[in-house]
């Protein structure tokens, strides 16, 4: 007699087999059998969130900081629809998530039953794949496959919708071993063709104005990929820039690093992208915030694109050499090919790229991240810089919300390790950072976790402070409070004749009192001279903290590529804008 298991038991057996220790979720009618089973599995810790979107972002933070897939458990109907934003966010930023949702019993599907919705229909475009399980005997193999799909190739979210009757029903459990065959099919050859690697080496050898343009794919490929990237950059001595998602793959404090590129990237990174003769894209996807005006994007360069997702290649920008593969495998091959063919490459090539480096140093001297500091009011850039200086010794994990504060964090906080920077790039989800910080803290209990936030964004998921308090997660919410949706206000200033339509929040809560109401610690800094002391106070508290950092209301985030402009026409500051934004550009931005 085969040992039969209920659907709910199978869910936990799969979680165990997949090495899952934490799930983020919220109970409801259609998942009660699974919640009932939770008590029998003390090794799997459930984190009760306050809204399913929070569960999704927490699972994202967990995944991005640990390299393991994030798991969330939600009920049918509103439980599932609330998770949609987080699933879409994970899809855009390639974060492996497994979402298990309850569904009304199979016989009620299609009857507009209470809390019924077409979950697989709604989540079809925002998951890598999803399943509605109608047979309990298929449940375990579907769940195992869900983990496989989420974590292989280009990672992403998946969803398994389990009707309530299937959770009760008994059936046969399929061991993960039986699924190894499928794994083979999904793990196709991903180390790049020999011929392409050869061509890449020759392009590298020929180039006199090269640049590495690296993205989140390096981090997704794992710690080995990061090590190899550092080796590749070191044996070539080429300059390197990174996308928002790739920060930390290469040390931000290294001299070969030109800083982030793109709309709010540095002057040197963007000009180097524009003028280079060889661009080596490693795990980035030519996003529109990166390329600026696509018709004038890096006009003179040969382009190599290394990506695990073939559909990312030639999607926005046509490249000369495509290498489909896993970054760590391709880099390993590339490095050994360079070493073999051109031992001592960096030295022998030094002369060839020396004038390129000189040009980069000229751009660097512009100090495009510079700002005019003030003694009267805290400048947001200064706040991030002070936060960095006071935490850099601690291996801190940083999350953000979306907007000006996010760009200032990316510009002024230096990341030297991968998986330390969690931000919503593709979807640009305000409200991401606070729940993401919860997930990061769950995965890294002893570490310092800070959400660099804006006051508008953080209010979107503020309720999750209650989660942080419940599980003693000492996350630090560092709010750069300018009372405006700062990025919206900045665009309105630059493009809509200072018509600040609805971008001012006239009735903000008192964040210090709010912190106290949640049972955590509230701090406020109003003046530049108290900033350091207050940050130190925040760091000394072993509890969740909301830090209300009152900053200059009207500060703009520079440098900036105005929309409709290519990389070499950046705005460096307020004085620069009159002559750079043409009437035509205003229409485009």
């Amino acid at each position, binding site marked *: 007699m085969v040992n039969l298991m209920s659907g709910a038991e199978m869910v936990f057996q799969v979680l165990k087999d997949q090495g899952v220790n934490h799930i983020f979720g919220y109970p409801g009618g259609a998942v009660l059998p699974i919640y009932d089973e939770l008590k029998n599995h003390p090794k799997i810790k459930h984190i009760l969130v306050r809204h399913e979107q929070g569960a999704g972002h927490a699972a994202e933070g967990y995944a991005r900081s640990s390299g393991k897939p994030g798991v969330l458990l939600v009920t049918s109907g509103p439980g599932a629809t609330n998770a949609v934003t987080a699933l879409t966010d994970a899809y855009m930023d390639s974060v492996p998530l497994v979402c298990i949702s309850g569904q009304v019993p199979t016989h009620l599907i299609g009857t507009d039953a209470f809390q019924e919705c077409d979950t*697989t229909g709604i989540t079809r*475009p925002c998951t890598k*794949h999803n399943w509605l399980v109608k047979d309990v005997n298929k449940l375990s193999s579907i769940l195992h496959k869900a983990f496989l799909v989420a974590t292989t190739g280009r990672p992403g979210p998946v969803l398994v919708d389990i009707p309530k009757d299937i959770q009760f029903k008994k059936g046969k459990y399929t061991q993960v071993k039986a699924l190894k065959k499928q794994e083979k099919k999904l793990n196709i050859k991903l180390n790049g063709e020999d011929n392409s690697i050869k061509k890449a080496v020759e392009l590298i050898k020929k180039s006199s104005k090269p640049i590495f343009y690296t993205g989140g794919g390096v981090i997704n490929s794992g710690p080995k990929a990061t090590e190899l990237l550092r080796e590749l950059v070191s044996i070539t001595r080429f300059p390197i820039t990174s996308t928002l998602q790739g920060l930390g793959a290469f040390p931000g404090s290294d001299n070969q690093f030109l800083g982030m590129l793109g709309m709010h990237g540095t002057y040197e990174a963007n000009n180097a992208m524009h003028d280079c003769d060889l661009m080596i894209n490693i795990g980035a996807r030519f996003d529109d915030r990166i390329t600026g005006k696509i018709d004038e994007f890096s006009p003179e360069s040969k382009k190599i694109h290394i990506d695990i997702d073939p*559909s990312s290649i030639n*999607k926005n920008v046509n490249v000369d050499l495509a290498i489909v593969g896993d970054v760590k495998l391709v880099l390993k091959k590339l490095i050994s090919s360079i070493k073999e063919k051109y031992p001592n490459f960096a030295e022998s090539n030094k002369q060839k790229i020396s004038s390129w480096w000189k040009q980069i140093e000229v751009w660097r001297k512009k100090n495009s991240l510079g700002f005019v500091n003030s003694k009267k009011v805290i400048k947001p850039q200064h706040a991030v810089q002070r936060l960095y200086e006071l935490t850099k010794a601690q291996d801190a994990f940083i999350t953000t919300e979306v907007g000006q504060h996010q760009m200032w964090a990316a510009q002024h906080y230096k990341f030297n390790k991968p998986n330390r920077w969690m931000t919503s790039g593709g979807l640009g989800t305000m409200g991401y950072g606070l729940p993401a910080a919860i997930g990061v803290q769950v995965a890294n209990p002893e570490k310092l976790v800070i959400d660099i936030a804006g006051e508008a964004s953080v209010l979107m998921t503020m309720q999750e402070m209650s989660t942080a308090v419940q599980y003693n997660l000492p996350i630090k919410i560092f709010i750069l409070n300018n009372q405006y949706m700062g990025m919206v206000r900045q665009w309105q200033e630059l493009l809509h004749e200072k018509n600040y339509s609805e971008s001012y929040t006239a009735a903000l809560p008192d964040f210090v009192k709010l912190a106290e109401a949640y049972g955590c610690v509230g701090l406020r800094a109003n003046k530049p001279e108290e900033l350091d002391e207050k940050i130190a106070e925040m760091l000394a508290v072993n509890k969740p903290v909301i830090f209300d950092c009152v900053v200059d209301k009207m500060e703009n985030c520079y440098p900036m590529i105005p929309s409709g402009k290519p990389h070499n026409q950046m705005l460096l500051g307020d004085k620069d804008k009159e002559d750079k934004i043409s009437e035509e550009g205003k229409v485009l931005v």
Partner: protein
Amino acid sequence: MEKSAYSFSTKKEKVENHIIVVWVDNEAGVLARVVGLFSGRGYNIDSLTVAKVDKKKNISRITIATSGTFQVIQQIKLQLGKLIPVHKVADFPKNKKTILREMALLKVVSSKAKLEKARKLCKKYKYTILDKTEKSLVLEISALKKEIDELVKKLQPLGLASTSRTGVVAMTKGSEVYKQQ
């Protein structure tokens, strides 16, 4: 693009017509995934035909007539290839090596004289009369899309009352078959 948040390309590229054939697992929702991919990413579907072709392996064959720039056609193929239930994707060139066919059922309701005229018009193509009354004819015709378009146009003044078309299906000539990449 009045005051939008994005810049756009000013390049104008040639639009190509392609026949994309996709072999998929015949499972719930698979057609929705394929169609949703097209609508979600703004690709065109000129026609779409789908049926199970391998009962044992439970595989359906979807034939999509589409149009787009070279870059868009490449994207369509690569994005389709990423769908989990998709086994293989083929791009059938519209040339002499490909057989293209569409089937149509045409009902003409008219006078005897006009019905006779309609029948004569169809002679140019391979056709079968499936049903016939004093006042009506139901014709089955298998031809190129363009030919059916023409015929439909000509039959309209003769009392064409109802048209049902399958959309295009395709197959390569010779002994070659598409293997999984």
